[in-house]
């Protein structure tokens, strides 16, 4: 905490903390959750966003499911927003879109850094303004996390391709935004393999009917979305598709649920690029899967002795399960 205090004192105006960690291991997940709790205690007025890495589904650490549920439940209590990156998704992006043959962790990390940069690099505060946004972290939280029960955010980027392919491509805002919108509503993790069959349902249905219909159609309901556009002619981009009330829940009107940030300045090597940060059902399925697997393992009491050795008891596990089942149910019933 001393080191953190030194850094904080160097800031003119601290908007918040950005904690980067994984969920599967021991240090990142356990100590990360502990640090977040401490930040909550000492700097309760600052915002905290945790960027967490969701482990590979096929397993990289055997007890990753236990570590993940313990971390997520603790973070849910002390953090303000959880920005999730899935290893599986980023790996696929490297393989399919970037065409990398032998993917190493530095390739994966590069894609992640690109995604973060596309969100947090400066943008103008208003249409036609020449001032940069003062508090991107704060505004992001304000826009995307209206209710403390719903804290899980996902990122999607477009376009994402290798240098070679870039030379042969041209982009229009209409094309990019159309793809991005479909990625949102069909819960697609990348630009390839988007399911174009998924459509938003009719908004005239009563809420309960809408929920079950959405589930059948695999439609991804959003609570709030933020689109960030970077590049030439950004003012000409038409974002009407994102303002459709059918995309959102009934308790937040699109004018509040949807926001856009723009800048003329191109990002990285892309002449035009768009990023989407979304508080929606993106992470419902991965979360449900992890909770299910952890529960199965917990039922057989495997590995529990390793945790009780260090002070985590079965009740702590049960508390975590309860909290996360609640989150799953809440997201499911959007």
């Amino acid at each position, binding site marked *: 905490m001393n080191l953190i205090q030194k850094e904080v004192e160097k800031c003119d105006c601290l908007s918040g903390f950005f904690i980067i960690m994984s969920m599967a291991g021991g240090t990142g997940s356990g100590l990360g959750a502990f640090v977040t709790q401490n930040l909550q205690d000492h700097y309760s007025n600052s915002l905290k966003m945790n960027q967490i890495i969701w482990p590979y589904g096929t397993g990289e650490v*055997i007890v990753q499911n236990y570590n993940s549920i313990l971390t997520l439940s603790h973070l849910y209590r002390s953090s303000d927003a959880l920005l999730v990156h899935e290893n599986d998704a980023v790996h696929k992006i490297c393989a399919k879109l970037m065409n990398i043959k*032998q*993917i190493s962790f530095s390739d994966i990390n590069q894609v992640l850094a690109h995604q973060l940069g596309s969100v947090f690099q400066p943008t103008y505060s208003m249409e036609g303004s020449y001032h940069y946004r003062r508090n991107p972290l704060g505004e992001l939280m304000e826009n995307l996390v209206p209710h403390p029960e719903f804290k899980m955010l996902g990122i999607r980027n477009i376009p994402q391709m290798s240098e070679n392919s870039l030379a042969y491509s041209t982009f229009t805002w209409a094309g990019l935004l159309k793809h991005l919108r479909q990625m949102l509503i069909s819960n697609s993790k990348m630009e390839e393999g988007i399911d174009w069959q998924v459509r938003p349902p009719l908004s005239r249905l009563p809420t309960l009917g809408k929920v079950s219909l959405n589930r059948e159609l695999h439609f991804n309901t959003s609570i709030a979305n933020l689109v960030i556009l970077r590049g030439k002619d950004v003012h000409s981009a038409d974002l009407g598709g994102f303002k459709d009330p059918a995309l959102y829940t009934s308790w937040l009107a699109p004018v509040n649920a949807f926001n856009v940030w723009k800048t003329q300045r191109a990002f990285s090597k892309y002449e035009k690029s768009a990023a989407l940060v979304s508080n929606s059902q993106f992470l419902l399925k991965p979360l449900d899967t992890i909770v299910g697997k952890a529960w*199965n393992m917990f039922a057989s009491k495997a*590995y529990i002795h390793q945790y009780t050795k260090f002070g985590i008891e079965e009740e702590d596990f049960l508390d975590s399960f309860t909290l996360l089942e609640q989150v799953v149910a809440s997201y499911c019933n959007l």
Partner: protein
Amino acid sequence: MTQSVVVQVGQCGNQIGCCFWDLALREHAAVNQKGIYDEAISSFFRNVDTRVVGDGGNISKGKICSLKARAVLIDMEEGVVNEILQGPLRDVFDSKQLITDISGSGNNWAVGHKVFGRLYQEQILEKLRKSAEHCDCLQCFFIIHSMGGGTGSGLGTFLLKVLEDEFPEVYRFVTSVYPSGEDDVITSPYNSILAMKELNEHADCVLPIDNQSLFDIISKIDLMVNSGKLGTTIKPKSLVTSSAGALKKQHQKPFDAMNNIVANLLLNLTSSARFEGSLNMDLNEISMNLVPFPQLHYLVSSLTPLYTLADVNIPTRRLDQMFSDAFSKDHQLIRADPKHSLYLACALMVRGNVQVSDLRRNIERLKPSLQFISWNQEGWKTSLCSVPPVGHSHSLLALANNTCVKPTFMELRERFMRLYKKKAHLHHYLQIEGMEESCFMEAVSSLSTLIEEYNQLDATRSMPVEDLPRLSVAV
């Protein structure tokens, strides 16, 4: 970086230990070109200024002056240890690290455990404390011994209790050489079963090894090398059994090649903790991930590749072959067939120029042919270390917690019962103070409980996998 102390007990333990230190020096010499005493070397060696008399000569940084192994050598007869002290490795060991006696344990577990245990307890404790004091952060004790003899088996397991009481926070990794069917020690079943009880109760992790399997691996390598089937020649120094470039020049003893395999096993196990890599795995992670229940801590190991061809470009096919081989029953270090038994957990420790995509691709490829227990379907632990072993471009160590250890234990129990029913050789044990028939009965029942646990897990194989009902919450 953490330190580990190696405790080698008995004839087998000391011989393997000797090979281990030889290879460790070779490995560090290959990596550390400048001769600076760094964190990697400090995990197994101390840097000592030999001009200083007594204990104060530790140097923590700077050039290597004189390396001393973090080891304690224990043997109740002097032959093997004396040979080490007169051989090329004599400078690596300190006379203060040895405990020897003259007559040996006579292949009798009771003599090793009860008689010598009591006699040397104080000395052992003192040497261990000394070696622990020399470490900044001691993480793990590696105990190397055999199960069939007297000293390694008896005194080696007595040590475990001492370590558990004195250093409860330090992990105890035991490399045990189990007697094969044609073992030359008649009482080896008695010794092994009595030792198993101690391993069950006091070890954190056991890596069982079997002489017959090691021998089969050596024969296979010899066959491949001599048959001339290989197009290009084998890269020098790349045999997992070779010690070329190490201090000992020829294969003097028949067990040398076999001991080298075990030494390589220990080196690969600790490689991720010593050298850098993109996905590190420390020794405590091995215990954490591979031991789901405290009793089931027996890990079947396999090392690949056994040799490298002189090809400079390694095609992906060969890399994938390495992964496939790790699961074949010919590469396991005990007689076991993990592919046809139930996996509780599996760790893959890769060294060399291998990326995460290769790892994931192979896991996905091999998964359908392996059976994992229902609550651990994705029971993989992976680690990537960028420093390959000497002479290889990459290597893989697979550790599996698998029910295929059960037949080994059952066979051991069989052999024990055959002797015990006739009460053969029992008087040698019973005449030692503190040994009674109940010791034998307790040891067998401890083993039987273990076998039963494996049986129960195997029984779940045929049951359909059901997802248990989850907690339901009010919305």
